[in-house]
């Protein structure tokens, strides 16, 4: 029997697979396709203090092997999420990770505190990397000092483990990773989307109403692998890897690069069963490449 289980700070995962933030809502829609008990964890859509209505449409565009999105962190606000969405997800035998966002340091802290009051959330994913909102988000994720400050402030306001979600829109990701580790991060989550643009020929205008959007899907997988590879050997905290995962072989590639678990985003749109399918197929792939457990494969691709 291949052992898929993995222990991370705050998370006792039966398998390393979870849907990525923003690509699975709060699980309700996908729960009509399969039983969410199957999942290692669920990462919820970003939560902000107040409700956010997000950006104007169009919000998505297709690209070669990927897509752009500029949803703009639309969510009903942390109070509603705790009242109505967390209890829904709690019915399932899985871990719940709350993705938190904000436009100021104070907002991150407030949202983190709110989740700390519930006993149903197992970890926080600190989103300092959303490219689709005017203020906040990305500004925290591209400056090591700001990244460290918000990590420290959030850590002080919660007992939950904090996974900091890094932006790939930087020239030196290792520097940011080390800064948030020093500031107390329990883990890293990487990568968020890369800022991109598409111009619509008939209108001669950017297709996405927000002009720019975040690129996700298979197109970004090599970037995610490279960044996780670079970071994993420089930090001592675990990484939840994501970016373009479409099949169980991709999961193994992320593990080899140094990720301890993975999240799957865009691929849910093509195949609503993708997380479940990958969980079923993972033992076969691990075995084929000579591993008896997920744990064994972590970091095995790193060349000294």
């Amino acid at each position, binding site marked *: 029997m291949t052992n898929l289980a993995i222990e991370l700070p705050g998370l006792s995962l039966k398998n390393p697979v979870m849907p990525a933030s923003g690509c699975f809502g709060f699980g309700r*829609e996908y729960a*009509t396709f399969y039983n969410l008990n199957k999942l290692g964890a669920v990462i919820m859509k970003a939560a902000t203090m107040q409700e956010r209505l997000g950006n104007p449409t169009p919000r998505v565009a297709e690209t070669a092997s990927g897509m752009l*999105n500029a949803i703009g962190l639309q969510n009903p606000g942390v109070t509603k999420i705790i009242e109505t969405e967390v209890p829904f997800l709690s019915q399932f035998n899985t871990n719940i990770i709350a993705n938190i966002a904000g436009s100021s340091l104070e907002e991150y802290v407030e949202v983190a505190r709110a989740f700390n009051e519930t006993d149903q959330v197992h970890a926080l994913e600190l989103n300092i990397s959303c490219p689709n909102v005017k203020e906040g988000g990305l500004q925290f994720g591209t400056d090591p000092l700001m990244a460290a400050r918000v990590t420290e402030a959030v850590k002080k306001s919660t007992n939950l483990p904090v996974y900091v979600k890094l932006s790939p829109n930087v020239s030196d990701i290792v520097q940011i990773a080390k800064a948030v580790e020093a500031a107390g991060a329990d883990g890293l989550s990487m990568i968020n989307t890369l800022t991109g643009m598409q111009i619509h020929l008939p209108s001669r205008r950017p297709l996405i109403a927000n002009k720019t959007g975040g690129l996700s899907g298979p197109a970004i997988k090599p970037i995610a692998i490279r960044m996780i590879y670079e970071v994993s050997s420089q930090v001592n905290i675990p990484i939840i890897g994501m970016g373009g995962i479409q099949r169980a072989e991709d999961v193994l590639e992320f593990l080899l690069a140094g990720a301890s678990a993975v999240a799957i985003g865009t691929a849910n749109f093509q195949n609503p069963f993708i997380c479940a399918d990958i969980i079923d197929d993972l033992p076969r792939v691990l075995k084929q490449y000579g591993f008896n457990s997920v744990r064994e494969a972590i970091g095995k691709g790193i060349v000294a």
Partner: protein
Amino acid sequence: MMKREKMRIVSTRVIAKETIEMVLENKWISTHASPGQFLHIQIGSHTLRRPISIADCNHVTNEITILFKITGDGTRHLGEYQVGNYLDVLGPIGNGFPTNITAQSTVLLVGGGIGVPPLYFLGKFLKENGINIKAVLGFQGEDHVFYEPNFRELGETIIVTNDGSYGEKGYVTDVLENNLAFDYYYSCGPTPMLRSLISVLKGKKGYISLEERMGCGVGACLACILPAKNERGYKKICSDGPVFNVEEVTI
């Protein structure tokens, strides 16, 4: 309720300029489809599925008809699929047109271009339930016209072309003045057409089917939202729509 299903292509043919009619077989989808719903179709390895309306449904043969216009890579590729190939489809999706209206009422169907297909399934369904049908269908020009005989079987049908090459010349709204004897109007077409329709038919009860670029198609990703006058402040086109009462949305 939607499912992920395989649909076998029974036939595919060009029925107007850059317009393809495809008949697909699948019992679950044909059993559950209602007018105004759509299919979210996986085409090759495209990252995103393509939403296409259900244009007809046959409960005896378990067949669903779709009509689509070749407007880009995805629809071009879909047009190359052959009879016997299978499509990976999520469906039927969405809340369609309300069909529980009093028998003997008159419904006006207003379609523009590739917005016409869902109105055929709707018109057929309503007619079977004793509703009187009138249709005003707008196309760019003669080469683009399709399903005229099908709609004539349902009721009085007026064809309008922008360039006057067939039927009346102009826009669908140009011929409405003399055709205001109806109880409800149901429409699907380009947003500018829907906008002028709503203003010309102000005060009338109407339902419109809307389009927006979609991600998941199941209500999770919040790509295809629309500002609305409800408590949340928005509606999702894929799962709350694609059909809306003209009173509940702002376009």
